[in-house]
């Protein structure tokens, strides 16, 4: 018998003829639950709690704001997803086309990407490997990550985000939830920002012109 068939047979035998399979009570706040308040403001507040820097601006000021944030970290070159030509005032952007290898990304040291959506309750940005987010390595190897969040994509809760990402999940896109810069608490539970992922996460929330 193959290991596969053997394991499955053992599972069936262990469970017996009629294992209990209760219905799932979903009394928690589900996707689409109505909420008071401003989700975008809440997102900015929560993301800032992780010591991610959050800046909010209009569409027309985006290039200038990105430029200012890049300068704040001494960045003059940034990688960016192939499909999205970001303008960053005073800095050069290097499109991921042909794909930048990890060593190049490491030496460029900064990246600007978009995002699929963001979660207000937890201050999380979600990248989905789509045209705005780019490949996973892009937002991982460089030490500075400038991440643009469209205000219209901010949802309230984790269930809202999971529902919105269901199509990605089904399509089999890679999904990455980012909540603040990389961190460790492995030494005496003292939080240290920045281990292997970007040590600096800069979030720019863009309010589209009406």
């Amino acid at each position, binding site marked *: 018998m193959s*290991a596969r068939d053997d*394991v499955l047979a053992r599972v069936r035998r262990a469970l017996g003829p009629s294992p*209990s399979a209760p219905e799932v009570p979903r009394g928690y706040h589900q996707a689409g639950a109505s909420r008071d308040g401003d989700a975008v403001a809440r997102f900015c507040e929560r993301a800032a709690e992780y010591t991610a820097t959050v800046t909010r601006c209009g569409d027309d000021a985006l290039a200038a704001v990105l430029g200012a944030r890049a300068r704040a970290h001494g960045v003059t070159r940034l990688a960016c997803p192939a499909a999205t030509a970001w303008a960053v005032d005073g800095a050069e952007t290097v499109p991921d086309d042909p794909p930048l290898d990890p060593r190049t990304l490491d030496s460029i040291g900064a990246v600007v990407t978009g995002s699929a959506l963001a979660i207000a309750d937890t201050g999380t940005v979600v990248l989905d490997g789509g045209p705005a987010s780019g490949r996973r390595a892009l937002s991982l190897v460089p030490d500075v990550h400038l991440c643009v969040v469209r205000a219209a994509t901010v949802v309230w809760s984790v269930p809202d985000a999971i529902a919105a990402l269901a199509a990605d999940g089904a399509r089999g896109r890679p999904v990455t939830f980012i909540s603040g810069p990389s961190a460790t*608490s*492995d030494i005496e539970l003292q939080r240290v920002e920045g281990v292997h992922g970007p040590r600096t996460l800069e979030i720019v929330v863009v309010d589209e012109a009406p």
Partner: protein
Amino acid sequence: MSEGFPQAARAALADTQLRRNLAGATATIRARRAAAVAECDDWQELRDAAEAIKTRTMARLPELLEMLETRVTEAGGTVHWARDAAEANAAVAAVAAAHGADEVIKVKSIATDEIGLNEALAARGVRAFETDLAELINQLGDDWSSHILVPAIHRNRSEIRRLFARTIAKGRPLTDAPEELAEAARVYLRERFLSVPMAVSGANFAIAETGAVCVVESEGNGRMCTTLPRVLVTVMGIEKLLPRWRDLEVFLQILPRSATGEPMSPYTSLWTGVHPGDGPEEFHLVILDNGRTDVLADELGRQALHCIRCSACLNVCPVYTRVGGHAYGSVYPGPIGAILTPQLKGLHAAPTLPFASTLCGACLEVCPVKIDIPSVLVHLRGRVVRETRGRVTREGVMMAAVAKAFGSRRRYERAQRLARLGHGPLADQVMGRWTAMRDLPEPPAQTFRSWWRERQG
């Protein structure tokens, strides 16, 4: 285990440095969890949903495992099945051999600790690099994990500095500052992330409906390992499944809040097979039994498989917080380890673990999937007594004598009289090691029942 829990615990209690490290760390993380949970006004409803999802998952495990296999394969991944540790290790080693990899990078994974993967790879000439900071500390120190989530919780900063100074940061000035120690690890590992062709990970969840595999982490080493190498192998126990994508909406809330006390961990990664042009070119999923079906066969004990490895039960356990993880003699320490290890490895391998608890119930109270650890402990104690002990033990004889005394009023009252004189089964039961630190109460002038009899006239 070479020795039982009581002996190992005694040694741990004598280590005052360990006790200080543990007490401080567990108190901190406990407070963080409490604050993160208090933010959710629907926490109990989330726990109810999580418990039911896991129970349903176990009931439907065969069809869900087959569904996962189909989805992963459709997405370009390869699925391997392993009855035991040896088969799982062989599957990983075969992938390494096929790619000529003599080094692999690893994301923290307790399943791979359980099967002894690093040692098995080393025996085949493949060196495994742990990339989680705490796992790296343990690997460099030839030490092993004492906590599910914070594996080096038993080490303080100066111990870690001394370790790094003689290993990865030789000859470089280094202080006790956690920032500097983390930076030393970053520098040491970055080159490996950029060059090693193969990675091994565990999985927090896998979604049967879509084939997605999920890893939750903080440092970014998980993202490095699951993104940069050409080949990725994930080793996952059969119990890690969730039926639907939607179920993530529950588990991505309860896991980080219970584990680190954060609303979300810094990084949660989900991938499905191979994504052309993005990440590894090859993906292998090893589905592991290694005793899990034995756990599943115990109707009461099987809930131990619902565990999502948040470690909240460790941090509140009055036993764990005093003795640490090593005393449990297993990669699964604390209350969850006390019910999981004896079931996974067999009761004979860990007969003292189900007794390593006062049944205080703190673990059940914080468990995000509502595993009734105290009830399973009591159940397993019964199994240990019935299944592992020879016919006659001193304790068994004594317990039988006491039960017999309690079995009739006449015998009970006679035993009471003897006990008051310091003899007989009742007295034997309480004297034992009691008086090392505590006084025994003075025997009262009369028992309650003689008082009652007199009163009734």
